[in-house]
């Protein structure tokens, strides 16, 4: 179902007018209320008067993650703290967290875009919505919660952990939809299979999955083993949280709510806006946010945007699968390697589990590239030859996709840590040398 026909199906001309109007208001607001933005615009020689249409956005300076850390905690707010009703923060691995403040209106926008996502996944007020994202500073839990509540669904605020209890509640309360990370969905699948409770006793049919990158192959695995339809919900803590975009029933890219979050594709080296259809770094401007609006925020995600109207009837711009993050990219022996590529290859092989752990190191000036993988139980053999053959098969498959040969370490069942949040799958020891 389309939650907001007017917003999600408006013509491109109409959308541009709305975006232009909103951008003008936004720039006036941040210029008046947020010192870092005002200073930066002055340095760039731009005033609010220079912004007359959405195309003028290219005149504005970028914002980065670093800015959000530098002005921690309140420096990037464009509204007084008295108007801020909620705080969320990202769990950045280094240094200070990134703190975002939401006004009451920001929360309303978030619940609106969140409900659009759930409706697109075929959910409505009759659904029992089990939220297994973490509640707290992380945007996942409360974001999905607000979306479900706005939709009118029966929301179960489970949060993370205690998988047995999760299964019990899901079973007893008849959950029809679950929100969690794709890796937790896999973890839960294993737990469900192990529990011995027949699948028919669960009513689960929709997975609202996000907060970490996942592959098509991983989706297939989740859909087959957990017997649900798995949809991607897209979000960034800095922008608003889950709800920035969603897949529709045709699963042909992620529809972005571009009436609220305006996306651009730029050249990550030069900062130039690239022509329509180019692949480059995704940049967002939050057109309507009041608490901590972001202007031209650089996501570091590499992708492509598609502007054609979708078969589902929506005209919101679609983002293709994210190719990788420039931060995640490993350069091994001079070759760019994305952990998502490794995952995709492993998911396609029936003999191994989709879990893996990459260790990169430098020994005698040469990069080493180890990948620990688990063999599925029925594929362990009684002889060394059989196992070596399997090992070689995995190496050859990976080599054909990523261009260099990893050293594959076959390991015992469940010896690779199952992540309940963002999966930790890489250790780059070169960073510690």
């Amino acid at each position, binding site marked *: 179902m389309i939650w907001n026909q007017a917003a999600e199906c408006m013509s491109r001309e109409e959308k541009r007018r709305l975006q232009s109007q909103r951008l003008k208001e936004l720039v006036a607001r941040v210029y008046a209320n947020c010192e870092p933005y005002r200073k930066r615009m002055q340095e760039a020689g731009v005033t609010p008067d220079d912004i007359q249409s959405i195309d003028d956005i290219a005149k504005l300076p970028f914002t980065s993650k670093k800015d959000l850390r530098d002005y921690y905690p309140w420096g990037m707010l464009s509204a007084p703290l008295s108007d801020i009703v909620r705080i969320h923060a990202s769990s950045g691995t280094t240094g200070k967290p990134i703190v975002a403040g939401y006004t009451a209106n920001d929360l309303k926008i978030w619940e609106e875009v969140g409900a659009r996502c759930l409706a697109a996944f075929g959910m409505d007020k009759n659904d029992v919505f089990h939220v297994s994202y973490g509640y707290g500073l992380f945007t996942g839990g409360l974001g999905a919660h607000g979306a479900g509540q706005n939709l009118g669904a029966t929301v179960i605020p489970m949060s993370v952990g205690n998988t047995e209890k999760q299964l019990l509640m899901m079973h007893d309360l008849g959950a029809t939809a679950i929100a969690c990370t794709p890796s937790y969905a896999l973890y839960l699948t294993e737990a469900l299979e192990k529990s011995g409770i027949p699948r028919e006793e669960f009513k689960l049919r929709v997975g609202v999955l996000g907060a970490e990158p996942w592959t098509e192959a991983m989706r297939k695995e989740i859909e087959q083993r957990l017997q649900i339809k798995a949809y991607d919900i897209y979000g960034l803590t800095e922008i608003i949280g889950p709800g920035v975009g969603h897949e529709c029933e045709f699963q042909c890219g992620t529809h972005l709510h571009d009436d609220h979050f305006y996306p651009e594709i730029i050249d990550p080296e030069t900062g130039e806006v690239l022509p329509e259809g180019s692949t480059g770094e995704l940049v967002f401007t939050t057109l309507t946010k009041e608490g901590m609006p972001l202007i031209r925020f650089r996501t570091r995600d590499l992708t492509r945007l598609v502007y054609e109207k979708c078969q589902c009837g929506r005209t919101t711009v679609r983002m293709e699968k994210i190719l990788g993050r420039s931060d995640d990219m490993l350069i091994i022996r001079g070759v760019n390697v994305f952990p998502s590529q490794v995952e995709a290859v492993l998911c396609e092989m029936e003999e191994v589990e989709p879990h893996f752990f990459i260790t990169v190191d430098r020994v005698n000036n040469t990069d080493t590239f180890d990948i620990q993988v688990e063999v599925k139980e029925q594929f362990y053999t009684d*002889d060394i030859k059989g196992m070596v053959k399997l090992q070689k098969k995995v190496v050859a498959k990976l080599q054909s996709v990523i261009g260099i040969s990893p050293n594959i370490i076959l390991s015992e069942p*469940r*010896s690779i840590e199952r992540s309940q949040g963002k999966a930790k799958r890489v250790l780059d020891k070169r960073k510690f040398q």
Partner: protein
Amino acid sequence: MTTKQLSIFLENKTGRLNDVAKILSESSINMKAFSIADNTDFGILRVLVSDTDKAYQILKQNGFAVKFTDVITLHISNTPGSLYSILDLLATANIYIEYMYAFSEGEQASVVIRPDNLEEAVKVLKQNNIQ
């Protein structure tokens, strides 16, 4: 003549064999014979135990990859030439031995054989009155 052997996949890290031995001993399961095949990355422990089904369950519960493999166990006299005569029989019948290991107790010796064609091997040995 045929016995169920347990084959256990082991990562090449110290202590894994100890773990298996400990787990089995804690359940009062006796290891009658074993051998280890390994390369630099991993190993496969093949073992005959006093209670195969129980050992299988317990190892599985402890997260090991365990498989049943049918092998031939023969009790032969602990004298020169007794093993040779058996191997010769199998070779003549074109049966290839994937691996074997042996253990002896006083007068008696036992040999565990994993042939590529189990049925055929059993037939040949029976025809020659070898138990």
